[in-house]
């Protein structure tokens, strides 16, 4: 019997979170190296139809749990389902997205299975002896640890957007196994409802223009927002602006906020603290605008402009407007 790599396909609002496809892509790559199959598990309510997508993105076999009892994310219910499945199919490796849901769920599963779990990985490699090496940032992003797991299954949560998205291939075939839903039990958890949605999904943005304490007043955020809009991006912020209540936490980039990896990150009036860097240092292109030539952010930037953001940003805005042929200035 061929062993497998199991990928947890996360769903939100009955849709698949794109991290699931990224994981399938990576799982496929490792599976080829280790001679394994790629399996996936999806659970929720009215999600059955997505099983085929998981095959198109690389799964050989998909286990489906589609039931009203799994409509809300009850971490104990979900854990029970996964633990039972893992015991039954015994995967070699089990990958889960390092989303808030995944980071709440995976440790419970690992503890129940008494196996090792590596958190928030940004890379997975196979060494010469065929060991899986899991690479993850720690110490607030200051180091990268290489971690090996001594138990089975090897479990890791993987950061969103670090693995490339595989191409969808509708000619791929695979097996769909519809599993019996779990018995509904009282886990003690009741999700009473969603009370707010994030205002922006900054982790999905291709361009982020971020504001820091170099900004003098709240209204000036408009200027940076304008720049962000012109570049087809969204507004980000360092923690102090969120603490001040100038902007909501959805926009916060950094260790206690969002980890982002856009194609372009422009840091305006941000010094580059380790906590801020932890959230954006893997961005493709980093631009820093800062009045202080010794600000640490410049060491992490591809391009830096030493200057007053109140001069630099308006100038940049008017140049972009000129090529775009939009209004006024």
């Amino acid at each position, binding site marked *: 019997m061929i062993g497998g790599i199991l990928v947890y396909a996360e769903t939100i609002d009955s849709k698949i979170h794109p991290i699931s496809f990224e994981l399938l892509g990576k799982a496929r790559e490792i599976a080829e190296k280790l001679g394994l199959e790629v399996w996936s598990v999806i659970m929720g309510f009215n999600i059955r139809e997505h099983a085929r997508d998981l095959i198109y993105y690389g799964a050989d076999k998909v286990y489906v749990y589609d039931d009203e009892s799994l409509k809300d*994310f009850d*971490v104990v219910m979900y*854990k029970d389902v996964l633990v039972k499945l893992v015991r039954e199919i015994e995967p070699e490796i089990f990958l889960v997205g390092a989303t808030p849901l995944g*980071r*709440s*769920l995976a*440790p*419970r599963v*690992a*503890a129940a299975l*008494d*196996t*090792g*779990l*590596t*958190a*928030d990985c940004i890379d997975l490699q196979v060494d010469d002896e065929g060991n899986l*090496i899991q690479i993850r*940032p720690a*110490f*607030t992003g*200051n180091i*990268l*640890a*290489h*971690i090996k797991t*001594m*138990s089975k299954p090897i479990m890791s949560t993987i950061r969103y957007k670090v693995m490339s998205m595989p191409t969808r291939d509708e000619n791929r075939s695979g097996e769909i196994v519809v599993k019996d839903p779990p018995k509904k039990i009282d886990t*003690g958890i*009741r*999700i*009473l*409802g*969603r*009370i*707010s*949605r*994030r205002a922006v*999904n900054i982790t999905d943005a291709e361009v982020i223009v971020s504001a820091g304490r170099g900004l003098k007043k709240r209204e000036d955020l408009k200027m940076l927002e304008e720049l962000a809009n012109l*570049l*087809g991006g969204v507004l980000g912020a360092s923690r102090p602006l969120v603490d001040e209540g100038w902007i909501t*936490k959805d926009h916060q980039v950094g260790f*206690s906020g969002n980890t982002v990896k856009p*194609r372009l990150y422009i840091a305006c009036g941000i010094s580059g603290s380790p*906590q801020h860097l932890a959230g954006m*240092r893997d961005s493709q*292109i980093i631009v820093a605008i800062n009045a202080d030539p010794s600000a640490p952010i410049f*060491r*992490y*930037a*591809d*391009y*830096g*402009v030493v*200057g007053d953001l109140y001069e*630099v940003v308006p100038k*940049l805005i008017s*140049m*972009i407007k000129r*090529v775009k042929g939009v209004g006024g200035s």
Partner: protein
Amino acid sequence: MGRGFRIVVLIKQVPDIEKVKFDFEVGRIDRSSAPAETNPFDLHALEAAVRLKEKFGGLVTAISMGPKQAESSLREALARGADHAILLTDARFAGADTIATSRALAAAIKKLGEFDLILCGEKTVDGDTGQVGPEVAELLNVPHVAYVSEIREVAGDKIVVVSDMGDKYLCEVKLPALLTVTRELNAPRLPTLRDVLSARKKRIEIWDADALADYEDPNRFGINGSRTIVVKVVVPGTEKRKGIILRGGDAVEKLFNILEEGGFARP
């Protein structure tokens, strides 16, 4: 809850991350260079525990696993309102990954006896896994809610909280339960001088691996009980960055050109 709330707060001592030296060449972390502090997120967990106690009565016990010097973080917890403090310290706890850490903490909580609520931080600034909370909950077989940014109400044996998963969810959990908390939950108060002085007189209980033997096999703590090992540490450099500082009166124009060439400022 006639006897009031029994609350356990899990506290980890960590190095002050801004002062740790990371050796880029040999990939080494020099912790000795940095003073120790309490994991910032854990102060919010403690504050929440103390507020619940102030409102409903009860007892707050702070538990930490770590070397002897972690006592100072427990001392701080006592100054900030914890009633009891227990330090799990023993060479046999050393080198623990999250599962081995969680086993020791769960065993200590079992030894304590009854509890209503366990509070811990969302994650630490050093290990940074965020796994210990959910793992402890699983080992104790109680429900948990992660990323709690608000405690709305406590009614009977239930607590209603807001869980910040990007979107925010209102969740009700039956006690006993475990919550991992974010920094938005509250603003920790600073202890007064009197608090600090009276905390100095309190005793910190020390438990070793044998003290937990009724609840967990001591061979499953520390490095022996760990399932993951750190095989290498790399300090990422900044070499992949271009590090071009644009100078002169036309610096902004240069930046604009770069953005345009990169396809970011298309008409």
